[in-house]
């Protein structure tokens, strides 16, 4: 491996960067960064390699932070990151994702989408999503009314998918002017109607390696795959020990492979089943699942993993990483077959991403 590899970790007490050696075996931690602000997501801007951090301070409000030197120095802005003086107050930024065309998108609480075309210096509200006819009926989930997943199309800048907790998935095909729900086939067991048009609780939405219309999602009620851009979802929960979990990561080259971490259930404590930690993956598009707990605690591990807290790098073999809500960071250098502890005693880990450059 000759590429520089760094893990990007978001926590309620700031961001952390862990620089890996050439074998991804030892890691050197820097942090807390972003002045200790609560950071929900740290991602990488394609092309420039700049880091983007989605954050919100209880005192100083929401902002997107930017670093062009892998976390050594940062700037921040929330100029335009507002619903206006008469609108609801933006509490925090949950996700920041840069699209291949250079546009940066920010998902916020209360749920809405903002975009920047000047590298994060100024932001504008994508009003088309807020103007969706369903908006008046959006209800917050346990984590709030949050837009947490942003999935840009790899080649068509007019197409974007977003995921909003307890509201569901949406797609625009006209650059954000209009949006359509993308929840058909997804269960909402907590709703009087099992398959409503919206109201499903998507926990994480990811795109498969072949891009385009091939999507996966970990939902409050199952794991799903779509081959048509979310117009129809097929449940692939199969032999997973639970239909509940938060994170999901897609293989960078194999569209049939995704990883997920089932938790024991929404009303059962939300920790790994039986206190035995494991990452599960499918390599056939959800037809079957394989459990891997090798290197992970197999007893008395009552930990959870949150929606943004798992990521895969693009090296060969792929590295997979996840962080727990109790501050342990684990990694695998063999595509999720075996695991080792990278860091412990961090604050609750809200997000994990990988820089390779």
């Amino acid at each position, binding site marked *: 491996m000759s590429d520089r590899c760094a893990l990007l970790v978001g926590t309620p007490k700031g961001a952390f960067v862990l620089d890996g050696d050439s074998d991804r075996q030892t890691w050197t931690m820097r942090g807390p960064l972003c*002045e200790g602000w609560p950071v929900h997501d740290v991602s990488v801007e394609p092309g420039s390699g700049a880091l983007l951090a989605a954050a919100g*301070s*209880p*005192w*100083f*409000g929401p*902002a997107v932070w*930017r670093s062009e030197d892998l976390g050594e120095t940062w*700037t*921040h*802005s*929330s*100029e335009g990151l*507002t*619903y*206006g*003086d*008469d*609108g*609801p*107050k*933006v509490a925090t930024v949950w996700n920041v994702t840069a699209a291949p065309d250079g546009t940066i998108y920010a998902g916020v609480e209360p749920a809405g989408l903002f975009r920047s075309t000047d590298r*994060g*210096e100024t932001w504008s509200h994508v009003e088309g999503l807020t103007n969706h006819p369903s908006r008046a009926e959006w209800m917050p989930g346990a984590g709030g009314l949050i837009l947490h997943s942003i999935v840009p199309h790899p080649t068509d800048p007019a197409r974007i998918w977003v995921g909003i907790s307890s509201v569901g998935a949406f797609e625009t095909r006209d650059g954000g002017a209009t949006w359509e729900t993308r929840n058909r086939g997804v269960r909402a067991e907590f709703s009087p109607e099992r398959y409503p048009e919206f109201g499903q609780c998507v926990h994480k939405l990811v795109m498969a390696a072949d891009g385009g219309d091939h999507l996966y999602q970990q939902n409050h009620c199952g794991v799903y795959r779509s081959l048509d851009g979310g117009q129809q979802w097929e449940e692939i929960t199969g032999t997973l020990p639970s239909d509940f979990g938060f994170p999901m990561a897609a293989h960078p080259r194999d569209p049939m492979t995704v990883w997920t971490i089932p938790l024991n259930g929404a009303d059962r404590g939300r920790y790994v089943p039986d206190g035995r930690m494991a990452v599960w993956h499918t390599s056939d598009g959800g037809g079957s699942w394989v459990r891997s707990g090798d290197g992970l605690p197999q007893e008395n591990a009552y930990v959870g993993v949150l929606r943004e807290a798992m990521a895969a790098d693009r090296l060969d073999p792929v590295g997979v990483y996840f962080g727990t809500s109790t501050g342990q960071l684990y990694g695998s250098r063999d595509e999720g077959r075996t695991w080792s502890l990278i860091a412990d005693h961090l604050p609750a880990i809200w997000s994990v991403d990988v820089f390779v450059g």
Partner: protein
Amino acid sequence: MAEPARAVAHVDGGADPRAIVHLPRALVALFPGTERRLEARGATVAAVIDDLDRQVPGLANRVLDAGPSIRTHLNVFVAGKRATLATPVPDRADVHIIPAVSGG
């Protein structure tokens, strides 16, 4: 984007009173080079913050929420008394911006 601010604002002339603004450490840390104590011109708290934002671009977004209103967990005091955006600021008054005690 946040930019380094002038260390101290030098306000010359003009009819508006000049306040002495005391900023919290956690706020100035967001704007490298900014001093904890700045002079700013304005007849009200809103006007003072507006002037602070001219000196330290982006600072108003950290202090004010939509409305505009002072962010929920920040308090502003003028001459030792809790203030709102409309509170008058006498010439040479001390204006303190203080984060509320919270967190965990």
